[in-house]
């Protein structure tokens, strides 16, 4: 378009703007803002970015289907850098200043506990999507009426992994084990939890050495040589992300994987992609795999994610996606955005999900999900990376979780 701007055009434009302004403002005000906070920078930014990617896909899908209660949704993303104090501040800011009516807390465990405490004062619903520490929802003193968890739970994985590894160890006659996990709460507590269940299923297990490298430690050489010196038959490790990748690459140099069987629950697509020479035969859990559950819906979701972001999803991606599925179903059922009303709708809710062991996932009364797919298999160097996957027995998981909760005085 060209030509001079006349007084008439200016007036017409101005009038149109005046007439349209309230509509635009109303449309903006009518948008439902959902706060999301996570680690979006630093060495484990992948936790936040792969969560955000998944939520943006959900945002488009939900808006195309008409939004929540007829309102389009819009995510407001905040980077807490994983620091608990900042996480607590951000949670308040998202609700009180940014006007968010729902929260997705995609923090790691340490910051999620801080967000959980903030939720006691805010009457909005919150779903924790990445914290796996069991006590967040298992401990009634920590549990909050309007906060839920849609994520793996440490105790579920520990039972499933220990059962699988006990069967494996019995079949291969392996009883001398070593452990190597990051030297902070997650590494120490979860290793202890795995060993507790593992020894229950296989009482003759002997831990011949333990190694506790620092999180983000650049060189694992002295840890690897220490493990080799101890001559265990198998190694259990909770290293993850870049640390696991560096450990495998440095372990390859020492032919570690030929000297002992290695088991880990933390292999994910980014780790698989980064390890150029993935050893075969690592006993591994399926954090997220397009081939487990081996259903068209799961494969379709994984491929849609890849198509949109040109990278494969993580365990955190599916958890965030399911959180939005739960919000969608609960809001439809409650016909309200009030935190307490949504909480009532979420409790006991069962939804169909590509990530469910039997095609469904349930939000249990203690505000945590059950029925999600957990499997263990062994690695191969090429896609699909993990084969011979054995699904976990959820009946057994719940039975042993109940026992564990009694021991902890949680119920």
């Amino acid at each position: 378009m060209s030509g001079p701007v006349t007084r008439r055009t200016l007036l017409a434009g101005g009038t149109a703007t005046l007439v349209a302004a309230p509509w635009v403002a109303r449309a903006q005000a009518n948008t439902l803002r959902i706060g999301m906070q996570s680690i979006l920078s630093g060495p484990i930014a992948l936790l936040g970015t792969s969560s955000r990617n998944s939520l943006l896909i959900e945002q488009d899908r939900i808006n195309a289907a008409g939004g929540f209660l007829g309102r389009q949704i819009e995510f407001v993303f905040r980077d807490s850098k994983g620091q608990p104090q900042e996480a607590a501040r951000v949670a308040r800011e998202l609700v009180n200043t940014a006007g968010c009516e729902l929260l997705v807390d995609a923090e790691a465990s340490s910051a999620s506990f801080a967000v959980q405490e903030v939720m006691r004062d805010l009457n909005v619903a919150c779903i924790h999507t990445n914290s796996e520490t069991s006590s967040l929802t298992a401990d009634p003193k920590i549990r909050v009426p309007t906060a839920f968890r849609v994520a793996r739970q440490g105790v579920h994985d520990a039972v499933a992994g220990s059962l699988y590894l006990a069967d494996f160890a019995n079949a291969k006659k392996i009883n001398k084990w070593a452990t190597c996990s990051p030297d902070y709460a997650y590494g120490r507590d979860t290793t202890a939890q795995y060993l507790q269940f593992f020894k229950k299923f296989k009482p003759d297990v002997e831990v011949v050495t333990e190694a506790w490298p620092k999180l983000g430690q650049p060189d694992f050489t002295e840890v690897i040589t220490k493990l080799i010196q101890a001559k265990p038959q198998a190694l259990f490790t909770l290293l993850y992300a870049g640390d696991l990748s560096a450990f495998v690459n440095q372990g390859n140099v020492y032919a570690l994987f030929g000297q002992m069987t290695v088991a880990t629950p933390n292999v994910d697509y980014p780790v698989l992609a980064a390890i150029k020479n993935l050893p075969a035969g690592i006993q591994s859990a399926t954090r997220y795999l397009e081939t487990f559950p081996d259903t068209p819906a799961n494969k379709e979701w994984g491929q849609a994610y890849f198509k949109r972001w040109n990278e494969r999803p993580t365990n955190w991606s599916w958890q965030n996606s399911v959180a939005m599925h739960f919000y969608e179903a609960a809001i439809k059922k409650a016909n309200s955005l009030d935190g307490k009303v949504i909480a009532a709708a979420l409790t006991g809710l069962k939804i169909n999900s590509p990530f469910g062991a039997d095609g469904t996932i349930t939000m249990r009364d203690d505000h945590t999900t059950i029925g999600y797919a957990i499997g263990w298999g062994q690695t191969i160097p090429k896609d699909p990376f993990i084969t011979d996957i054995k699904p976990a027995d959820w009946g057994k998981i719940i039975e042993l979780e109940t026992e564990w909760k009694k021991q902890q005085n949680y119920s």
Partner: protein
Amino acid sequence: MDFNALGACFTTPACVVTQATSGLIVGMLLFLVAAGLTLIFGVLKIVNFAHGTFYMLGGYVAYSAYAATDSYALAVLAGAVAMALFGVLFERVLMSRVYGSNVLMQLLVCYAVVLIFDDIVKIVWGPEFRAMGMPAAFQVPPLFIAGGVVPPFYAVLIGIAALIAIVLSLGLSRTRLGKTVRAAAVNPQMVSALGVNTTVLFAIVFAIGGGLAGLAGALAGPVRSLSPGMGFSILIEGFIVTVIGGMGSIAGAMVAALVIGLVRGFGTIGFPGFTDGLIYIVMIGILVLRPQGLFGRPL
């Protein structure tokens, strides 16, 4: 503390060979980082807090070069050369403006560079970690010497780092440039008065320092994960080495790096869970006995 395990290790040749090799590789890579740090301090009396960034960028440049050429040698060369050039740029554009300023100003400039390049790395290579992968030539079983495990890749890295140490040492003691650098470390005004272009000299010092850190990042590429902010952890250990060895002493950096490497190698057997603490105790012990560090000039 597990003195029995440590004693058993020292009496077993296999354990001594394995742990000593692991200590050597940790120490040698640390030496390359610390050598640049101590060289820059020795000549310019500047503590380069951005040195870890050179290490990180060297690793990332090598990662991209390896992906493009499939040649580890070219990747290492690219990492070292790029960081040598970056060192010159860093010195000319930023550091030369804060020579003689308050140390807080120098710290601020360096810290700004660290943050800016951590973010640039995130934008260019992504926030998630990267791994170069082991070159095909080194995908071979480890050697067994006296029952101990010695990976061929690490043997090569130790050899390269030792060669660099010798070249650096000879270069500083035998060449005209080296002598000028050493003279500038003692009395830069006199060197300038004698007609030496100290502007060029300082840029060369930063080029060598940056190049060495970039070389370390590139050499370690096949076994260490790359992630934004990875320079920080290596910087702390680089400082420990520099302080133990004596600020400004290349020979001191070499000895201190090997001490740290061997403390790590054997400390993990005898002091599991306290290896980092042990390193600081060694540092405190040395500084109590020799406050100027092992090879530093008296304070």
